[in-house]
Structures are given as structure tokens and as C-alpha cells.
């Protein structure tokens, strides 16, 4: 019997949690679950806190089933998961910063998102941050950020290098903490959807999609088929735009501006098409709980079809250019290798995991409408380097083009929204949506009157940022931008 079902059988189930079960477990079962992560039998999908409870979203690796395990911690303490399973460390530090929950037995208790600048910051957070030591002869520190020379998001990277070779990289994030989870508390669903869509600007569709699905699951609301298909259309357009941008940006970091220029044109075409079809270049606030905010008219369909034709015409020569430019291949092949073991341990989603052989895609493995009716393959590579991450993106672009075509061909007619059945009982919902970076998790707890009691948004970057630290080890300092761009983790989504 699989670990997760075993744990659930012994636990006390919570009513009104959809579509997967949630159960309150005891401290022992909580520790066993942590052990399950460490042994690789379960994957940690998320770990978050409330005032007096800790929750974890868990996926059984064998069965593929998902559940939420909760531990009541009235005294504000819970047994640390991070002590045996490193991917949980930063999540636990965040729980301490945001909800004051203390992980018992955790080795790393430094603050994470709290930089000592909030009115209610802890005393430890106000002290200078304690970076990890690295000792050895001829080692030196290189500190980059949080303010960078280019216009990118802020993050602090501390390298310890021996000459050009990186011995250790330590990240420090949290500079763009916006307090989204705090703002969510007490908000209504409309405002909640807007907040979710502003968690990470480049994944606004994925976040709004996940939030809407979580809300609809909690309320037991059935969305009209046309809205479901339009959501997938937007999600694929977003993936397309971001992947085009990323492929060019990675090449640009190897000073190959030509690729950047061409993919920049493609990305701009996608964004303009989105503007024409849905009234917003990034399709922000286009997905709302209960449906979608904009219908797609014939002109929009024509615009998207024109985009498909244009992308199919322009993209293959670019792929060939990437593949044929020896100087570029020399930079990307073998750089920033990430092992399958680490990708699996961290449950790395998106191109980061798939380039290292982790065969997981929320659209296929945690299937949600309309992807159950669409044909696509999930590209996998095993080399785990920058080149592999570029190729995964290239293949995903091809898949997305096919998906968009299928959606346009089979787009059902009908209404695009339904009113939400608010005002029943308190309820909870969980949703995972495959954004362009990987699986975005939203957990939502609604009050009786339909306002948000607690909403947790987990960006895929939570499980990718730490892997960047691992992938860069042994590489040279000058290759960091290339590796970083190939991961392209979100600062905003991570810092919330």
C-alpha cells in the first residue's frame, strides 16, 4: 500500500476540501510523511502555515495521488520537515517569518522573506544576515545584487569562488515581498483573483487559472466548457510568449544578440495577438473565478490563426540557427548540469525538471480540463544542462502551437461565465496549473460568506531556486548568467 493512502487511512479527514482530500494528522504521521519525502516515495508540492496549523501538499510518487496533510499546532510549533528533506527548508523559514510557526529540529532558522524592514519584523531579522561560511585557501567572495546593472528583478547572489571556479553560491531573496497572502485574507474572490494575477507578472494567466480552479473546486462550481477551453488557450499563449522570450534571452547572455532579436519579434507578435484577442497583452485579469472575462470573437480567432502560421514559418529557421551556431553550442552544452536525483528530490517542475529527466507535467499527470481532451507530448531530456533546458523550451513551443490549433478547432460555443454559488458553508480548494515555469499551486480556504480566510500561492520557483545553487557549483563565474537565465526563476512569485 502506498505511503500516502496509508497516512490518509489513519488520519482524520476534513470535510469540504476539494478536489483532493485533506486530513488532519498527528505529529508522528507528520514526521513519517517527512521521512517519505526523504526516501523519495512522496514529493512535496507545498508547505505553508496558518495561525495555528501547518499544511503540506503531498504527491505520492508511485500512485500519483495528491492530498493535503495538516498538523494542528496550537503552541505554534511543528516538527521540521526540512531537517530530513532540504527542499522544505526555505518554506519553513517563510512560515516562521509570515505566521510565526516554529519548525522543531530545523537546522537553518535564519529569516528568509523577512529582511527586518517590516514594522513587526523579528529581532533576528533586523540583525545582519548570516551568510553560510565557505573556507579554504585562495577563496574570495563576489557579491552580486540585489540591485543589478540590467533591468531585472532584485536578488542577492553571493559567490564564493576560487579564481574563476564557483565553490558555493548562496542566494538571498525576498526583496520583492508584496504581502500577497496577507492582502488575500478577508478579500472577496474578485479581489483575490486580481491579487493572484499579480503574484508574478509573466505567469499572470497561470496564477489566475490556478486561483479560479481552486475557488471553483471549493465552491463546487461547474465552469462552462467554452470558458474552460479559452483558459487553456490563454495559458498556452502565455507559455508561447515566455518561451520565445527565454530562448532569445539565454542566447543573449552568451552575447548572441541575433537570436534575441528574432525571438523578440516572435514574442511581440504573441503579445500583440493576445491584445487583439483578449484585450490585454499579458491577459491579466482575463481569467476570473466562474469563467473568463473576455470572449474570443472571430477577429481574435483569425489573429491567433495568423500568429500560428507566422510562428510556424519563423521558428524552425531559428531552431536551426541555434543548433548550427557552434560558438553558441559551445557555451550551452555541458554548462550548469542538474542531476535527476536533485530534480526529483526537489520536485522541480517545468523545463528545469524535464531537462534533467523528471517526467512530470501537471497538464498530463494531474490532468485538468480541457487537457484531458487534447493531444500533446511532454518533452523530456536527460542531459540537464543549459542546452537541454533550451531544447525543452523549443519542443514545448512546438507542442503549444499544436495545442492552440486544437483548441481553436474544437472551441465550443456557449456562455463564458457562471455565477458563483457563494454563501453556503466554509470550504477549501486546491489547484495545480502548469505555468510556463512549472506547476503553480493555489490552496484556498473560503469563509462562509465567500471571502478568503487563507490563500496560499506556491510558485514553481520555490523548488528551482535552490537547484540553481547546486547546478552552478564547479562552473565558472562568467557562466552564471547563462545558467540563471536557463532556469529563469521568478523573484516576484517566490517573494510573494
Amino acid at each position, binding site marked *: 500500500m502506498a505511503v500516502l493512502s496509508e497516512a490518509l487511512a489513519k488520519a482524520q479527514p476534513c470535510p469540504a476540501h476539494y478536489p483532493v482530500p485533506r486530513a488532519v494528522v498527528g505529529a508522528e504521521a507528520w514526521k513519517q510523511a517527512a521521512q517519505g519525502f526523504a526516501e523519495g516515495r512522496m514529493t512535496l508540492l507545498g508547505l505553508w502555515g496558518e495561525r495555528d496549523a501547518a499544511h503540506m501538499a503531498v504527491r505520492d510518487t508511485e500512485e500519483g495521488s495528491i492530498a493535503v496533510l495538516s498538523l494542528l499546532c496550537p503552541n505554534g510549533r511543528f516538527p521540521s520537515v526540512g531537517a530530513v528533506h532540504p527542499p522544505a527548508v526555505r518554506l519553513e523559514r517563510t512560515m516562521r517569518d509570515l505566521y510565526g510557526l516554529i519548525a522543531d529540529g530545523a537546522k537553518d532558522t535564519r529569516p528568509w522573506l523577512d529582511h527586518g524592514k517590516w514594522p513587526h519584523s523579528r529581532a533576528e531579522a533586523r540583525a545582519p544576515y548570516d551568510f553560510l561560511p565557505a573556507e579554504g585557501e585562495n577563496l574570495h*567572495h563576489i557579491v552580486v545584487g540585489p540591485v543589478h546593472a540590467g533591468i531585472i528583478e532584485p536578488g542577492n547572489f553571493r559567490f564564493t569562488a576560487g579564481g574563476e571556479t564557483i565553490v558555493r553560491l548562496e542566494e538571498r531573496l525576498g526583496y520583492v515581498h508584496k504581502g500577497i497572502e496577507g492582502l488575500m485574507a478577508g478579500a472577496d474572490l474578485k479581489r483575490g483573483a486580481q491579487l493572484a494575477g499579480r503574484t508574478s507578472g509573466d505567469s499572470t494567466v497561470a496564477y489566475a487559472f490556478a486561483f479560479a480552479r481552486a475557488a471553483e473546486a471549493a465552491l463546487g462550481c461547474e465552469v462552462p466548457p467554452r470558458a474552460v477551453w479559452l483558459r487553456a488557450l490563454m495559458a498556452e499563449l502565455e507559455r508561447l510568449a515566455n518561451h520565445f522570450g527565454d530562448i532569445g534571452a539565454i542566447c543573449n*547572455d552568451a*552575447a548572441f544578440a*541575433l537570436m534575441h*532579436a528574432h525571438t523578440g519579434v516572435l514574442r511581440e507578435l504573441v503579445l500583440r495577438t493576445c491584445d487583439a484577442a483578449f484585450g490585454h497583452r499579458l491577459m491579466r485579469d482575463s481569467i476570473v473565478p466562474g469563467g473568463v472575462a473576455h470572449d474570443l470573437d472571430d477577429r481574435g480567432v483569425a489573429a491567433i490563426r495568423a500568429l500560428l502560421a507566422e510562428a510556424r514559418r519563423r521558428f524552425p529557421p531559428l531552431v536551426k540557427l541555434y543548433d548550427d*551556431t557552434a560558438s553558441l553550442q559551445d557555451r550551452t552544452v555541458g554548462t550548469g548540469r542538474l542531476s535527476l536525483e536533485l530534480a526529483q528530490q526537489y520536485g522541480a517542475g517545468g523545463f528545469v525538471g524535464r531537462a534533467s529527466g523528471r517526467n512530470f507535467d501537471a497538464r498530463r499527470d494531474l490532468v485538468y480540463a480541457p487537457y484531458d481532451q487534447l493531444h500533446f507530448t511532454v518533452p523530456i531530456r536527460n542531459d540537464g544542462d543549459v542546452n537541454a533546458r533550451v531544447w525543452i523550451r523549443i519542443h514545448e513551443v512546438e507542442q503549444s502551437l499544436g495545442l492552440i490549433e486544437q483548441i481553436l478547432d474544437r472551441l465550443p460555443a456557449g456562455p463564458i461565465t457562471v455565477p458563483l454559488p457563494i454563501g453556503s458553508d466554509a470550504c477549501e480548494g486546491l489547484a495545480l496549473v502548469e505555468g510556463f515555469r512549472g506547476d503553480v499551486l493555489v490552496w484556498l480556504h473560503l469563509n462562509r460568506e465567500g471571502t478568503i480566510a487563507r490563500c496560499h500561492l506556491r510558485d514553481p520557483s520555490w523548488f528551482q531556486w535552490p537547484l540553481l545553487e547546486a547546478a552552478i557549483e564547479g562552473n565558472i*563565474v*562568467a557562466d552564471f*548568467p547563462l545558467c540563471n537565465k536557463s532556469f529563469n526563476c521568478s523573484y516576484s512569485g517566490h517573494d510573494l
Partner: protein
Amino acid sequence: MALIRDLIVQFFEMSLVLVLAPGLVGLVRKAKARLTRRRGASLLQPYRDLLRLLRKEVVLAENASWLFRVAPYLIFATTWVAAALVPTFATGLLFSWSADLIAVIALLASARFFLALAGMDVGTSFGGIGSSREVMIASLAEPAMLTTVFTLALVAGSTQLSTIVAFMNSPAVGLSVSLGLALFALIIVAIAENARIPVDNPATHLELTMVHEAMVLEYSGRHLALIELASALKLLLYVSLIACIFAPWGLAGAQADAIALLIGAGAYVGKLAVGGVLLAVFETAIAKMRVFRVPQFIGVALMLGLLGTLLRFVSRSF
């Protein structure tokens, strides 16, 4: 009277390189922008940037020593003098008899020495990285340059640039394997020395990958303007060097009249434009190398230079 005339011509040459240098940088940027489907900034933008920097106040790090303040002037002065020694549009300029090609290399080397010192002076990690990378590149580029010079000197019988150019312009030169090798070596050295792709990226904003830019990160105001102008001059110098040795057509002679000088100047501007566009095309078509590949790249130049010299010893016909 002849001396005054020579002085005027030399003065005209020195002003011309100073005026044209930012224009060449602007041209390369413009060409690269057009090649990547952008409109690009105006050709005059580098001039505007320099004026803007000259007007701005200098922000100095608290722990900057006198060296940090003096270095920009030294770098600019040595580079300018080096540029004055190159027969850009006329051979036999007044200063050209006072120093030869080896002196040009030495002048540029001392400019680099001060720049590398200044990069480390403030003690930031980027400055240190930039200086260490620059010196690594230089330790290979300078020998490569010297062997190239030896090849040319063996072919032309002199290290004096005016003599080399006069020889290259004469029918005696013919086709020579050594010269071909020297041309390639010189181009590679020029790319490495001027921090162009694939060795360095002059347009990057990524602190960790910078070489030249990393050393000058701490500079501002007029200091930065001088350094920028010096690096523009250096680019111009190398393009001029390649042009005057391997494409010496249109160069005015030692005692040429005003019309010949004007023709020479016109041909020179044309050559610069061609060189700038070719550089832009090359830079667009190639990605930057991994830092540790650079020694191999410049090593090719060193080997070509050596081979050229050796071949010359084997037989005069190479």
C-alpha cells in the same frame, strides 16, 4: 617651413583620429542594431554620451587612491600618442619617425597596465575579476601581437610603420603566405584587445561576464569619458593599423600636397566604415566564448604569428 607643414599635418591627423573615434563606435553600434532589426541610436550618440559624461560630476569611491584619479588621463594620453604614430591617411607623418610599431604596442600595454591597476584600486570584486581576466588575455595577446610585428618586419625589412606601409604599397610585396597569417593574427589580436565579441561583450549588463567594463565600473564623469574615448581610440587604432598595412591604397605620401592628403583622408574614412561594418557583421554572427576558451583563441593568433615568422626564415618566397 617644411617643419611647420609637417606639424600641421600631424596635428590634423591627431585631431582627426580623436574626432572619428566615437563615430566609429557609433557606426559599429548602428550596424549591429540594424543587423538585429533594431533602429539603433544615432551615429552621433557616442559624442553626446561623451559630452554628457564630461558635464557630470565625478563620484569617487572613498578609498580610491591617487592612482585611480590619474589613470584615466594616463590611459587616454598613451592611447592618443599611440594613435598618432599610425599612418592613418598619410605616411611619413612627423611623429612616425620617433617610434616604431613596437613602441605602439608598448604604449597600449602601459595604458592597459594602468587600467588594470585602477580596476583593482577600489577593491570591488568586479574590478578585481575584470583586471585578472584582462591581464590573462593581455599576457597572450601581446606576444601574439609581437610575433605578428616580427613577421611584418621580416617581410618589409623594418619595424617602422611608415616603411612597412610604403613597402606594402609598392609592387615588391606580392602575394605572401606570411602576410596572410599575419593578417589573421592581427585581426584576432584586435578583437581580443578591443574587448569585442567573442572575447568580451561591450554591450553587456551582466557584471559577472564583463572584462573591460568590469574594470571601469567604478568610474564616472570626466574620468569615464576619457576612458571611453581611449577605448574608442584604441578600436580606431587597430582598424587603422590593419587598414594601413593590408589595404594601403589611397595613402598620401611623405611630401604629398593638400589634394593627396584630402584623398588620403577620404579613403581613410571609407576604410574605417568598411572595417566597422565588417566588425558588426562578425560580432552579430558569433556568440561569446567561455572565458577559458579565450587563451585558445588568442593562442591561434600567437601560433599564426610564429608560423609566419618561421616560414619567412625557411624561404623568402613565403
